[in-house]
């Protein structure tokens, strides 16, 4: 499966070239909010008013791709929580008004599939349409779905795929109660090295056009694998199996893109995985750009695609060890040691 185009709205200025040109936004709040475009050119104002942030960011990231790419055969979205702000607003009304007569807007906007439905509606796309909500693997499941769709369809098929997650007071509160976020403020350029409990919440939407045709492609997604509830030895066995399945050795990886989020409880898992590779294997982090959220691996793939095309090498925000343009990248992310994912991406030159 090939990436043909991409677009992102994130806590960095990714909806224009500013981020690619070297701009690095520092966030110092207890969460890292997305920097959003005005949307005035992509979303009619009457629609925009009714949209929650998740749907808004998702549409904002998807519409430029729809304008630039003809003939899309469907829409596949990954989101752990969808429009949670609308969801809990509706819930609050239920309780506060003792189940009185409510307006349906929040309810309709709150369903996780509202974004994929809205993209279909705005682009008049009656093709394949699915939303995956499998927690921290929601985006990976969307990738897998797209990969199977393209394998089973004729050449030149293409899909828009992507992910969205929004910060709301409510999911922040719930995850805070579950001890998932840091108590102290940590700026994003210091996030990875904090080594305290929890991470910092981020948000955003990243969208891709994927096809089964290598013409004009930006990157090739070779394979992906998910691993659930593994022990350390199982993680190593399954990672090795993934390399055998793809006829690669660990030495073939030029760069690891790692999901470290500064949470001392789980960051050792990235060290474990890194230790399986030769000591001089280069690596970069990505959550220092966008914070942590369930579908942040979509941003990792955004970063990866640009790195494979020789961009961002000297970017001020790059943390890790990166000296040369990589050709083969492995993205590794995990959530609380429960859901792990590997995404193998190669440059397109042959």
């Amino acid at each position, binding site marked *: 499966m090939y990436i043909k185009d991409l677009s992102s709205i994130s806590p960095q200025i990714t909806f224009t070239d500013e981020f690619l040109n070297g701009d690095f936004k520092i966030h110092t709040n207890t969460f890292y909010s997305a920097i959003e475009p005005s949307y005035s050119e992509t979303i009619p104002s009457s629609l925009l008013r009714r949209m929650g942030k998740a749907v808004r960011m998702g549409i904002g990231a998807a519409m430029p791709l729809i304008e630039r790419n003809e003939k899309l055969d*469907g*829409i596949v979205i990954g989101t*752990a*929580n*969808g429009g949670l702000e609308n969801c*809990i607003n509706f*819930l*609050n009304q*239920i*309780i506060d008004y*003792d*189940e009185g*007569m*409510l*307006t*349906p807007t929040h*309810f*309709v906007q709150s*369903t*996780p*599939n*509202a974004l*994929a*439905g*809205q993209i*279909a*509606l705005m*682009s*008049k*796309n*009656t*093709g*394949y*349409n*699915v*939303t*995956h*909500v*499998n*927690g921290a*693997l*929601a985006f990976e*499941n969307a990738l*897998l*779905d797209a990969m*199977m769709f393209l394998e*089973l369809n004729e050449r030149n098929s293409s899909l828009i795929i992507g992910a969205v997650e929004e910060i709301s*007071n*409510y*999911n922040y*509160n*719930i995850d805070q*109660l*579950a001890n998932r976020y840091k108590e102290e403020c940590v700026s994003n350029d210091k996030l990875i090295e904090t080594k305290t409990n929890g991470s910092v919440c981020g948000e955003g939407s990243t969208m891709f056009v994927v096809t089964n045709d290598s013409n004009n492609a930006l990157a090739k997604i070779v394979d992906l694998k*998910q691993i*659930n*509830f593994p022990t350390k030895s199982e993680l190593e066995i*399954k990672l090795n199996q993934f390399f055998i399945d793809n006829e690669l050795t660990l030495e073939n990886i030029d760069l690891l893109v790692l999901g470290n989020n500064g949470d001392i409880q789980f960051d050792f898992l990235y060290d474990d995985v890194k230790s399986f590779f030769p000591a001089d294997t280069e690596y970069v982090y990505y959550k220092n750009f966008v914070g942590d959220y369930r579908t942040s691996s979509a941003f990792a793939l955004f970063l990866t695609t640009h790195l494979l095309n020789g961009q961002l090498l000297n970017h001020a925000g790059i943390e890790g060890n990166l000296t040369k343009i990589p050709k083969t990248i492995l993205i590794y992310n995990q959530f609380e040691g*429960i*859901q792990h994912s590997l995404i193998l991406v190669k440059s397109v030159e042959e």
Partner: protein
Amino acid sequence: MQKIFITGMGAISSIGSTVDEHLNALRSGKCGIQKARFFQSRYAENLVFGEVPFSDDQLKEINNITRQKEFTRTTVLALNAFKEAIHQAGISAELLKSDRTAFISSSTVGGMCYTDELYSDANLKAVPSNYVRSYEGSDHTLRITKMFEIGGIIDTINTACSSSANAIYLGARLIQTGRADRVIVGGADSIAKYTVNGFNSLMILSDEACKPFDENRSGLSLGEGAAYLVLESEDSAYDKTKIAELTGFGNSNDAFHPSTTSDTAIGPILSMELALKIAEIKPDLIDYINAHGTGTENNDITETYALNTVFTKVPPYNSTKSYTGHTLAAAGSLEAVFSLLSLKHNELYPSLRCENPIQEHNSKPISHFCKKELKHVMSNSFGFGGNCTSLIFSKCI
């Protein structure tokens, strides 16, 4: 292309906690929609629901998980149906751990079924509830995955009311593309203040038990439940009793409105046509259709229009939501179970309470129980967000 066989089924809803109990209820025309006994809401007084007739504690006792405080009703319903399905298919504990065994589930309300606890936790009203780590849509999937140490691909889908039909579709493609040998597919949802108030705000809940395809229908009745199928490749299923073959599936978006289907029913028509194309059969070979049939003004007229567009002569059809109410994410897989029961036993079950069939288009649902030799059956699921999915099951030859 790899064939996909169904080797196991599990179901729980207001009309039964096993597949056999569902079969008896369908044969005897027993409706599960009535006053709620356990659901707490001001609407429990004046509306009727397809409620599973057990309390949360009873459900946990039945499933031997009384100590798992963080398990929600959605999770326990899912567990109940999951266990029945793997038992029938003879999937051993060891086989579940194989990386060739996948689990694709779905839910809409998911862990948010405890609306009051979620309100408290989201607004920091009190000490964290038992469910603070249970609210996400994927919660039930992950708890079952952990419990059975399922080794293969795991996913949770939410395409509203077509969720579990898409779980079945995705599972089928895992087998077709060689990524799994066996997949447990389906979905679960429980009645929640969240969905009851949501559908009520759209003014599509009926005061009385829903009357799908009736001229005087007044909306849908909400239900709850869970259903799972075991899909297996030919090699994996070779020595097993095969219930049927999954031969067709189609997915399309109506691209019209967030919560209603277009008058021209583009999405429903496309999903049915795609399923027929994949199954490589002509429309006139479909012997029975389990319709989406919610009982809302919009769904039933647009679905009737779609059926009359796709089929020159509309095959016998019913809405089994007239028995169970609309079980949301579970509806696609629950109705797949009902379609498979029809197919297996060569029986058609009546659509309940359709006294004056929709006059337009001159077609009416099955009105009484009858025996009929069936070869190919279709099941439709259409959801908010324009998400339409059709499945075709065929007798094994």
